[in-house]
């Protein structure tokens, strides 16, 4: 009797959870569905939940009438460069901070912890002035370089390296391995999962970055897709299907990265918050 009572309650809970989950993804579904409608269908009352047969006009229009391929290319160049450089430099820096004794080590680590607290938004004014002086405004270098200066990955990697027993490095040193060999053949493979997790999280974060591309780009050809899509929208006026089509295109890479590497993203997000 008691068991039955529990399973009914549990079933209700599960049902409630399912309803909440469906409600939560509904906006995502709604954008996808709207992108497959014609403009007149989008404002029909009552709204149709399933766009059948699918209508690809909005996608075709957006691809033909906006520099979306250029924006895609820009965003890929920026996100991949930022991810590769951030992870490589952070691994190296974290390894030195965790394993090698040298003067200035403590000062560097403390400066990273303080730098980690500084909000990027508060630094955009001097950053913009600096970029202006360096002639990096509206260039890939201007988009990429400030985004690799975040100390988060260094702090995370250092925590993971600190937990590897020192004997691994000592033994390898005695065998004559160089420090870079030790990092890339021992420490990196041992921490492969967190490296991978931080890479995906960095990629998603860079792809989605809005504030910096907004400030540092001024010509349409240099925009990244999250900023570019807002320009197209204001040019279209009220055109929900086209607006939705470009939103779908803009979110495919990050949504796919998350859905494919769900566990890694979870791990990376937690590590970034300070929980392992």
């Amino acid at each position, binding site marked *: 009797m008691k068991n039955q009572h529990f399973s009914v309650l549990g079933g209700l809970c*599960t049902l409630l959870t399912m309803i909440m989950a469906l409600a939560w*993804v509904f906006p*995502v579904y709604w954008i996808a569905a709207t992108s497959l409608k014609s403009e007149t269908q989008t404002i029909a009352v009552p709204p149709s939940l399933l766009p059948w047969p699918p209508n690809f006009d909005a996608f075709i229009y957006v691809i033909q009438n906006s520099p979306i391929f250029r924006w895609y290319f820009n965003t890929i160049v920026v996100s991949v460069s930022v991810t590769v450089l951030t992870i490589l430099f952070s691994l190296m820096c974290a390894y030195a901070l965790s394993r090698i004794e040298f003067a200035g080590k403590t000062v560097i680590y403390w400066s990273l912890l303080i730098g980690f607290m500084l909000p990027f938004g*508060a630094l955009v004014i001097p950053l913009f002035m600096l970029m202006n002086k360096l002639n990096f405004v509206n260039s890939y270098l201007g988009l990429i370089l400030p985004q690799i200066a975040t*100390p988060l990955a260094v702090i995370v990697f250092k925590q993971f390296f600190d937990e590897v027993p020192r004997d691994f490095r000592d033994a390898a040193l005695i065998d*004559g391995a160089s420090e870079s060999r030790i990092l890339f053949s021992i420490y990196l493979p041992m921490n492969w999962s967190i490296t991978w997790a931080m890479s995906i999280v960095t990629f998603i974060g860079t792809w989605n970055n809005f504030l910096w591309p907004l400030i540092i780009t001024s010509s349409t050809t240099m925009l990244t897709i999250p900023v570019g899509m807002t320009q197209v929208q204001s040019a279209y006026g009220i055109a929900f299907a086209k607006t939705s089509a470009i939103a779908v295109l803009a979110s495919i890479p990050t949504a796919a990265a998350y859905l494919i590497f769900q566990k890694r993203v979870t791990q990376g997000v937690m590590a970034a918050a300070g929980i392992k």
Partner: protein
Amino acid sequence: MRKVPAWIGREARFAMLQHERNARRSQRRQGWGTAWFFVVPFLFFYVLFLVYPAIQVAYLSLTNADIAGQGNFIGLANYAELFHSQDFWASVWHTLYFILLTVVPNTAVGFLFALLVVRLRRLRLPVLAAFFLPYVLPVSVVTTAALWLLDANFGIINYLTGSTAAWFADPNWAMPGVAMVTIWWTVGFNMLLFMAGLQNISSEIYEAAALDGASALQRFLFITCPLVWPVTSLVLVLQLILQFKIFDQVYLLTLGGPYNSTSVVLFYMYRLAFQQNRGGYAATVAIALVVVIIVGSALQFRLLNVRRR
């Protein structure tokens, strides 16, 4: 130096000691050079693009520079102006209002979702993905969805609920609208942290309590809640820091309007710097934000250290 066992012969023993000494010596000699070789690539960009701007923003706040950086030293005049600026204090109030509307609700919803998700087995990953998916979308996609769903005339939310709110065009509804969108977008993050906290609670505690006759409600109130509190406090502080920095959603949903009702601190700064060309004064606003955030982050570090210990 490690002790060499006695059973090793003299020559081998000597060779081993020699080898270790060499390794150690080369390690010491390498120390400086290698360490800096490892640290410099990151440090170069870090100093140039984070440390230098951080110092520069403090200096700029003492000048009347334009956005190109040209201007004169004017002492604390910017701070005096800031202190008397109605627009600045209005932006502070709007930010605090936004914080009130998001920090606790976002934490509570995250906790609720975590409770709902951890008890699932086969459905766990898809349900988790449903709650977390908005978090990985670009903010402009999130706001596109919001503007479309909350459209006063054609939006499906007004259609389904029969509401006639004009959302982002109504000064009373604009900020709650922004807060709602923010919660929808970011709650998955809080949920993940809570799930980790819930999974850390050993099931033996629950079993023992059940044996002692504690009801489900009692177990929730006297085991789950207190044991998950460290995570709760962490999430609250993280949210506090994060929501102080709100900019993107406001820029995309309302542009600070209607009637400035959603002009938050960072948006106020952005407008001063990049629309009114007042780099120095905008830097003063940035400094005010930095001070608040540093206090919040110091609190976060304290919480994390308490957790570790």
